[in-house]
């Protein structure tokens, strides 16, 4: 069970004041939350690296959290930013498949989580862009394999990835 929004917001406010115990609990909860958030959006082998990158970003940029505002949308914006950065860096992975069993559990915060989820970003991409980003950047297929699988030329795959990632980076704070 991961801590709820108000608990995490309270822990972050204490952390900004230098409370190390609150910070340890917060980062542990954030780590679990991020593991779920990114699952199915990066290959399993890269999941820990990405979670660590986000934890470091949270640590470095903790002053940018305003305690008067919700915590999870702040953390989700940082997570999306790091995720897109991560997708840009990743060209090929040995991981081929991702399991389809990791949606967030139902809870009172389901609506909030739905608004800040990574899936929300993909609806703004064209089908071709979303398909090739999934295949190449998330599932780790080569450009050639992706081109064959989705019936696009290799150049089109590259262009669609480039344009899709550019579009995603402009949508990081978008909720709908």
């Amino acid at each position, binding site marked *: 069970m991961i801590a709820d929004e108000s608990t995490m917001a309270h822990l972050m406010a204490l952390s900004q004041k230098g409370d190390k115990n609150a910070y340890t609990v917060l980062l542990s909860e954030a*780590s*679990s939350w991020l593991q779920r958030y990114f699952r199915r959006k990066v290959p399993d082998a890269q999941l820990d690296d990405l979670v*660590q990158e986000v934890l470091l970003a949270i640590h470095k*940029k903790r002053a*940018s959290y305003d305690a008067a505002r919700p915590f999870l949308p702040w953390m989700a*914006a940082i997570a*999306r930013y790091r995720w897109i950065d991560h997708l840009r860096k990743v060209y090929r992975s040995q991981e081929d498949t991702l399991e389809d069993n990791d949606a967030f559990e139902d809870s009172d915060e389901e609506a909030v989580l739905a608004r800040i989820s990574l899936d929300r970003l993909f609806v703004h991409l064209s089908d071709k862009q979303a398909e090739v980003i999934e295949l190449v950047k998330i599932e780790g297929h080569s450009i050639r394999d992706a081109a064959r699988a989705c019936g696009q030329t290799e150049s089109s795959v590259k262009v669609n990835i480039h344009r899709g990632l550019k579009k995603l980076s402009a949508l990081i*704070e978008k909720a709908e």
Partner: protein
Amino acid sequence: MNRINQDLIEQMASELQPVRPLKMRDGLLLVALAALASVLLVDVFVGLWAGVLQGQASAFFMITNGLLLVLGIASATSVVTMASPRVGNRHDVPKWTMAMAGVLPVAALITLAAQQSEAELLRDPYGLYCTGAALVASTLTASALLVWLRRGAPVSLNTAGLHLGVAAGALGSAAYGLACPIDGIVHLGVFHIAPVVIAGLVGRFAVPRLLRW
């Protein structure tokens, strides 16, 4: 949680120092001080136009500088907000204020075309000077906004760069505009809006690389 994450968390917790959270109020105050300092510097180096207080300024003067001020405030507020990211933030207001200020150059060009006096633009001896001076006047505000963004965690880098440039250009042009006694629509609509366009383009293409984190 795996061992590596646990070690990382323990290390970060042991290094934890108190931080002063970024408050929107502080950011807006910083920008306001930078804009005010710009006006003072314009007064020191160029001298503000006394005709404004003596009722000599045309309506175009008031409208142009008023729109530049509104555009600058809207864009600067957007930039200050971007330092504290959040899924659900919207940064639409500057778009509408940009469209609003865009009416001025359109009006200037229509006026020129209607009077068939396009060459008037080339004959304006102060036009480029005004544009250059306004860009110089925008540097303080641009620096303040850049410092604020670099303290924060902007995630929409291209938009942040564009809005930073537009805010600095608009506030700089409004500050210098208080010293310019040429108050015709053609001069104001072209040479006092040009700094906003130039600063916006510089912000959009040069600033994101300074913000990446």
